[in-house]
């Protein structure tokens, strides 16, 4: 542990000073500028900020969260077992909330000239590359991004050189912080022209109900004709406040694909942005979200069409049970000059209980005329006929519901390109639907 918890929690000037002391000069400057911006900004407010109207964080008290310590052995083992089950061939990067980073099973990638390392280390050794990786993230663009810019630690940096197809996927496990502690997960990926990579980012923690804070940024730079398959899984502990920004900047003809599963946290506000800069760049975002108990899960997507002939497509399927609230905000923004832009959003919501709710606004802002853009939103419930049919075949009501939800998610999960990962995700989602509770740490999942 580099710093001691103070009375004001980890989000404080002292923490910044410690981070600055451990950073190269350019990064120290960036952290300081970010802290200044953060300090000058009010926290987002549901009465003032349109973006936050449906997600109220008035009860978030930052000073409650201390600096994170080293992760428990059980948690490390859980993260390892998930990797071993879902994608054992992938290089494994374990990121502790305390900044400790270990890289395993990456020999073949390193031999290729691919960089897989801790972000702190990369900031020292490859400052140009890291700065490129950070170039899509504004220093003070928002409250939580500014906080992250100032305070992140550890982190992962991946660089795939031009023309290189990474021989193995990379599995990144960001381990949740301990009780009443904060973590600042960081992932930066730079793909040079014609490079490709498959990535899993697993945000994982124990099922215990202590509050935690997680403020994450994941940024991708895709060069010309680069390909990235990105599989983010969020299964944080059930009382976690989770704020994340995930952004892919796509160069000419680049293709970004996201296959996501959002399962954990008490309150999530996640921004998923695809910035289609280069002519002919494409993005596909497919995700499922299962929320129950008192979860409040907010996804905000941006499909920014800057270049001509760009294409984007998003499908987000949410199922909400108990008193869970799903919020979705989407924007397809077609800038002048982005001719032949083709953008589409579909947001589907399945409400499973009285008390569950879905809300949001899928927006279109179109400033070029030769385009084809659209969106669809639906909210529905399990069809009584469907339930009856399954029950008439002898399936109990709960199982019938689980079957229907599984079927509902199938057309998203079936797209996950890696078979073992797909199977694992299906099992993960099944378990969420079945256990009626938050986190993913069942006793029998912990390796002996």
């Amino acid at each position, binding site marked *: 542990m580099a710093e001691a918890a103070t009375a004001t929690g980890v989000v404080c000037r002292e923490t910044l000073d410690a981070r600055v002391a451990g950073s190269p000069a350019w990064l120290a400057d960036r952290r300081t500028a970010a802290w200044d911006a953060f300090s000058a900004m009010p926290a987002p407010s549901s009465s003032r900020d349109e973006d936050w109207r449906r997600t109220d964080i008035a009860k978030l008290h930052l000073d409650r969260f201390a600096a994170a310590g080293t992760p428990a052995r059980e948690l490390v083992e859980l993260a390892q077992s998930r990797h071993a089950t879902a994608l054992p061939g992938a290089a494994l990067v374990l990121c502790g909330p305390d900044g400790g980073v270990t890289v395993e099973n990456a020999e073949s990638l390193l031999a290729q000239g691919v960089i897989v390392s801790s972000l702190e280390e990369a900031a020292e050794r490859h400052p140009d590359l890291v700065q490129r990786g950070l170039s899509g993230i504004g220093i003070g663009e928002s409250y939580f991004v500014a906080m992250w810019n100032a305070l992140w630690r550890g982190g992962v940096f991946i660089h795939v050189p031009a023309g290189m197809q990474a021989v193995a996927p990379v599995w990144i496990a960001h381990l949740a912080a301990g009780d009443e502690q904060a973590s600042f997960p960081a992932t930066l990926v730079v793909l040079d022209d014609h490079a490709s990579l498959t990535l899993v980012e697993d945000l994982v923690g124990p099922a215990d109900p202590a509050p935690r804070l997680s403020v994450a940024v994941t940024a991708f730079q895709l060069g010309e004709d680069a390909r990235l398959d990105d599989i983010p899984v969020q299964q944080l502990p059930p009382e976690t406040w989770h704020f994340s920004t995930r952004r892919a900047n796509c160069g000419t003809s680049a293709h970004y694909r996201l296959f996501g599963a959002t399962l954990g946290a008490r309150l999530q506000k996640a921004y998923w942005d695809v910035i289609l800069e280069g002519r002919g760049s494409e993005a596909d975002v497919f995700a499922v979200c299962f929320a129950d108990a008192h979860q409040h899960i907010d996804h905000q997507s941006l499909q920014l069409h800057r270049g001509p002939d760009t294409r984007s497509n998003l499908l987000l399927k949410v199922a909400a049970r108990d008193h869970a609230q799903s919020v979705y905000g989407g924007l397809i923004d077609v800038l*002048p000059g982005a001719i032949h832009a083709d953008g589409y959003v579909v947001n589907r919501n399945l409400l499973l209980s009285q008390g569950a709710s*879905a*809300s949001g606004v899928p927006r279109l802002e179109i400033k070029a005329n030769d385009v084809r853009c659209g969106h669809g939103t*639906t*909210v529905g419930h399990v069809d009584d006929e469907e339930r009856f049919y399954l029950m008439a075949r002898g399936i109990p009501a709960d199982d019938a519901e689980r079957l229907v939800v599984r079927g509902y998610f199938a057309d998203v999960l079936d797209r996950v390109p890696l078979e073992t990962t797909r199977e694992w995700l299906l099992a993960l989602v099944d378990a969420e639907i079945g256990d009626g509770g938050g986190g993913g740490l069942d006793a029998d999942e912990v390796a002996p």
Partner: protein
Amino acid sequence: MTVQAHELTKDYKFGFHDVDVSVFRTEKGISPEVVAAISDHKQEPAWMLKFRLKALEHFFKRPMPNWGADLSGINFDNIYYYIKPVDEMGRSWDDVPDSIRNTFDRLGIPAAEQKFLAGVSAQYDSEVVYHSIRDDLSKLGVLFSDCDTGLREHEELFKRYFGTVIPPNDNKFAALNSAVWSGGSFVYVPKGVRVDIPLQAYFRINSDNMGQFERTLIIADEGSYVHYIEGCTAPTYSNDSLHAAVVEIIAEKGAHVRYTTIQNWSDNVYNLVTKRAIAKEDATIEWIDGNLGSKVTMKYPSIYLMGERAHGEVLSAAFAGNGQHQDAGSKCIHVAPNTTSNVVSRSISKGTGRTSYRGHIRVLPKATNVKANVRCDALLLDEESRSDTYPYMDIENPDVTFGHEASVSKVGEDQIFYLQSRGIDEVQATALIVNGFFEPFVKELPMEYAVELNRLLALSMEGSIG
């Protein structure tokens, strides 16, 4: 009903104005004194003056909306809030001064009245100058008058409903209207009475720097039916005018109200209107809302589905030409179980025009078995054209079937080619496609209005193709 290229002319054909014949006007600007002068001039009961002054406080207190269209061009100090054109309201067109009557003749109102309307009200600046209703309807107890007459002659009924659907503090412009309202329509349809042919109100701004603040209250008693149509035009001035109306509708159990608007203000009018309806058990509300004119329109006709099995429909069409911003949409709030709503919006942006659809569907926790559907389509005709879609939804009951779909595209190259391959030139082909795009809206209008709307569209389409 097709647009012909040779019909296209450049002018807004309603841009003419008459010489000022007004008999009374308040000084420019807004103050408690101006509000008191209006109330005093109308010899209103004390409670109404109190209502107005309270509303004025809300108006002063509330900030300008920071969303939607750009309203920075409005100068509240440079507006006449009340201009009375004549001393007496006419019951026959012969009673209306020649110059004003001439205006309405040119707008085709008396001719339409004879042909297919059950009643007509014509407002000129701040007051209704002509008003009539067919005898058979008034014998059945149907009331149709300007709102001031409603207050004067049916105070009890008026007071029971007035301001209950849209309270004075609802928004800044509703507050302004509540403070300075004048004219508009008061409609009461008794239990079980069906008014099968439409009532029409026509709103005309004549003066420069005018603010028109008509107020409409429609009460459809149990099991009744009424179709109310409003049209509006104004002269083209270099100074901006403001139109801030408030329309309240109450549809009692089993009643059915259809409200049709063909808004064709000149392009110096800020059109900021609050329209809201309450639908009780088994009632139906339909807003048929067409926006072609104005500089800026912000208008979101709303339906509160308060009673079981109530049904709401919003069918809107918007056309934004150079420099125009149509920020229109709808709200459907499902409060009761088994309620249904359906929204269809079509919009076209041409030149530097901008259309925005802004809608809200809300399903409250007690509203089970709700069905709601929203469909928005936008066409962009030119490179500088812009279109936005902001469909808000808040669903708090799982027992719902909600669907929303939207699309934005330009006129299809293949559609143009297909029509051209049949000998139709590009301008006509575009006009045909635009007409077709608005067809779902147009076919809900009475025939005479459909023809008129297509003609207006043809005018607006002028020069859309290089």
